[in-house]
């Protein structure tokens, strides 16, 4: 076992926390959506590296190859990427509507306009 495993996962967690921090701390709604995407991608990395087999070929059946990487995380993450774009699209559409109704996409301004939000 090499020490690589731990380093991989440490950086995944760093990326995940960078995305989470961006979502919590930035007041701009588009920055929040970018943070959500960064968070999401770090989960994708985690799944794909669970399925990785050292020296394994990609999951396309080839003559003479016996060791393949695990295809199941790949299928899950393919679906997750597409669903992630769908949620991003809805979030951006909401941002556009908020801009039209309130004239701002800054959370601080929205709070001042309507404290109930």
């Amino acid at each position, binding site marked *: 076992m090499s020490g690589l495993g731990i380093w991989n996962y440490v950086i995944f967690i760093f990326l995940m926390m960078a995305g989470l921090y961006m979502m919590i701390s930035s007041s701009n709604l588009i920055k929040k959506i970018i943070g959500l995407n960064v968070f999401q991608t770090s989960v994708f990395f985690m799944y794909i590296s669970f399925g990785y087999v050292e020296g394994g070929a990609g999951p396309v059946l080839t003559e003479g190859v016996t060791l393949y990487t695990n295809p199941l995380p790949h299928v899950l993450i*393919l679906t997750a990427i597409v669903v992630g774009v769908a949620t991003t699209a809805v979030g951006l559409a909401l941002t556009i509507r908020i801009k039209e109704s309130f004239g701002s996409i800054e959370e601080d301004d929205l709070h001042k306009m309507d404290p109930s939000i």
Partner: protein
Amino acid sequence: MMLAHLIDIFLLVFLAVISVALLRIKDLLTAVMIFGIYSLTSASLFMVLAAADVAFTEAAVGAGISIILMLATLAITGREEKIVERKFKLLPLIIVSITGATLLYGIRDLPPFGVASNPAQVHVAPRYIEQSAVETDIPNIVTSVLASYRGFDTLGEVVVIFTAGIGVALLIGRRRRLLTAKEASRHE
């Protein structure tokens, strides 16, 4: 194999640097562009981890469509993030530190990276690797699982995208009708 590991670590460190840059940048157009670089780098990382289908999808959908949607939104909402002079926010940092520390504690129990005898590799996956060519006659296992074994799940995914499409149309489509109605009333 050492080379693949080096590329893997290089790309991961690069991604970490990009995420810090994303945190610090105030100009939204630059942030979206840098997020495009982030997506493309993650597609390269998927390629290094032997996940070609995921890399294609991330490059096309993540780095392509997402960025176009974000740029279209910026064209409407404006590209400047409001710069607020305020004291350093402590609460988000505390929350993020606690969550990160908990997760770091959790990864100690994960199986080592890339070992063929990991639990994830020995249970269900071998059955698909051995049987999918016989049962579906498709050489790409990802395709055969996605379209054949889990066809209904993919149908569910299409329903999710359809719902998102309806949501976007309802949110933005109404605006266009209102705008044209307003213009029509102005002309009268």
